[in-house]
């Protein structure tokens, strides 16, 4: 079983090394398409941004640009939808996004794609996967984009839950709608619990997986999952968060699913370098070099089995030894052949 899995791992690595030029844009396209479609389903206030051709074209552009383009398009689409609903909600979200951008710029932790992945996984009821995966694959600083991803998700949630209040222009003033929006996002206890739980899990998983103990990655996934679950439950109870949209059962199921997916990811990422074909240019005094460096494929060596044949009672009566070592016989034959040749 393990051998088959290892072979699959090699095949995946081989496949990626060979077709990474096509795989990367396809992944970016799918990611952009999924996240923009999710925005359409959860917000969808601007009819122009809801049309499938617009989403497809935007996803196609994202697939050709660096991965940060997905984040830019996601935020632009989100602001567009919110602007179409309410000016006040747009101002609050825009200001919060600017604050997040400048705070992000202080450390530039990288992995800005997490900003898109977190709301997407929240939509798929698997947000608990994010901190475990980040702890396994990134540094502790990735807690910053993860926290901002949570804020983005709660922005969407708050706008979605307050459509009526934000569109009632007759009964409330602009300032009241601004206050409502700011209140709901900035003092959202559920958001605070999620941010703290995510940060704690990322730090814990990162520290454990770097320990020099056997199976540190698996231990990190297990402990990270349990601590995250406990942190969310304790936090929700302590802060008396009621309308989080997650029941305890869905939380536990989501966490189990996340741990399982994290184990699969661990299998495919741990000690595997997904090196890709590189194109480099350089020169010396005599030549210009245009080099295509293709990663070498290392095929897992087949496991060697030593078969030992034990003779039965009949054979023993015939005077045969208890155990026949075929390897020894072969060596003897080869030795004889060598001597004959001499």
């Amino acid at each position, binding site marked *: 079983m393990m051998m088959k899995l290892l072979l699959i791992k090699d095949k995946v690595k081989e496949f990626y090394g060979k077709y990474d030029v096509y795989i990367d844009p396809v992944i970016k396209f799918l990611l952009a398409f999924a996240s923009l479609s999710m925005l359409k389903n959860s917000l969808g206030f601007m009819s122009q941004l809801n049309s499938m051709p617009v989403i497809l074209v935007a996803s196609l552009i994202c697939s050709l640009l660096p991965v940060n383009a997905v984040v830019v398009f996601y935020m632009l689409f989100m602001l567009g939808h919110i602007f179409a609903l309410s000016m006040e909600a747009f*101002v*609050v979200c825009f*200001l*919060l996004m*600017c*604050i997040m951008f*400048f*705070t992000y*710029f*202080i*450390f530039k932790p990288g992995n800005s794609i997490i900003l898109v992945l977190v709301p997407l996984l929240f939509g798929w009821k698997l947000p608990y996967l994010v901190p475990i995966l980040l702890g396994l694959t990134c540094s502790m*600083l990735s807690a910053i984009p993860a926290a901002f991803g949570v804020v983005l998700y709660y922005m969407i949630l708050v706008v979605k839950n307050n459509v009526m209040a934000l569109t009632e222009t007759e009964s409330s003033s602009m*300032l009241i709608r*601004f*206050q409502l929006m*700011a209140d709901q996002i900035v003092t959202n206890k559920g958001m605070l619990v999620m941010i703290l739980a995510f940060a704690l899990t990322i730090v814990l998983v990162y520290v454990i997986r770097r320990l020099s103990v056997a199976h540190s990655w698996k231990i990190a996934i297990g402990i990270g999952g349990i601590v995250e679950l406990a942190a969310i439950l304790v936090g929700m109870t302590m802060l008396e968060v009621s309308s989080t949209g997650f029941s305890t059962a869905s939380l536990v199921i989501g966490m189990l699913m996340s741990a399982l997916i994290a184990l699969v990811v661990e299998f495919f990422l741990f000690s595997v370098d997904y090196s890709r074909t*590189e194109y*480099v*240019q*350089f020169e*010396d005094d005599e*030549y210009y*070099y245009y*080099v295509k*460096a293709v990663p070498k494929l290392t095929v897992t060596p087949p496991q060697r089995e030593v078969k030992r044949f034990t003779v039965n009672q009949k054979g023993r009566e015939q005077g045969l030894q208890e155990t026949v070592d075929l390897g020894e016989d072969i060596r003897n034959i080869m030795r004889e052949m060598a001597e004959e040749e001499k």
Partner: protein
Amino acid sequence: MIRANKVKTMTRAAMFEKKEARGALAVNRFFRGDYVIYGMIKSAISITIAFALAVGMWVIYHAEELMTEKSVADLFALGKQCVFMYAAVLILFLLISLAVYCVRYQKAQHKLKGYRSQLRKLAKSYQDEASAKEKML
């Protein structure tokens, strides 16, 4: 003549340059102190803008209260409080930046070790080539 070993070393060095153009190699352009101070200045500017935006948001949120209920003395007291808070946030973020940029510089230097040894290998192969040419002449 193209030498396979030289091309291999050059390719490895070029791949590193391509990968780390904005990472370790960009960090290496600075002395340690300069890099950390540059990072801290960037952090100070960013946190100042972010703080100003947050204060702006707070002012809009409390606009009515500030316009009607607060006296000039209250507003001055609020301004003072705001400055103290800004100073505290700035100091906190500068300290975190100091630690983060120090660690980043150290990591970059560690990454550059392998690259430097490749460059030394290249320099040696150039020397060997030159001496071989001289002998031929």
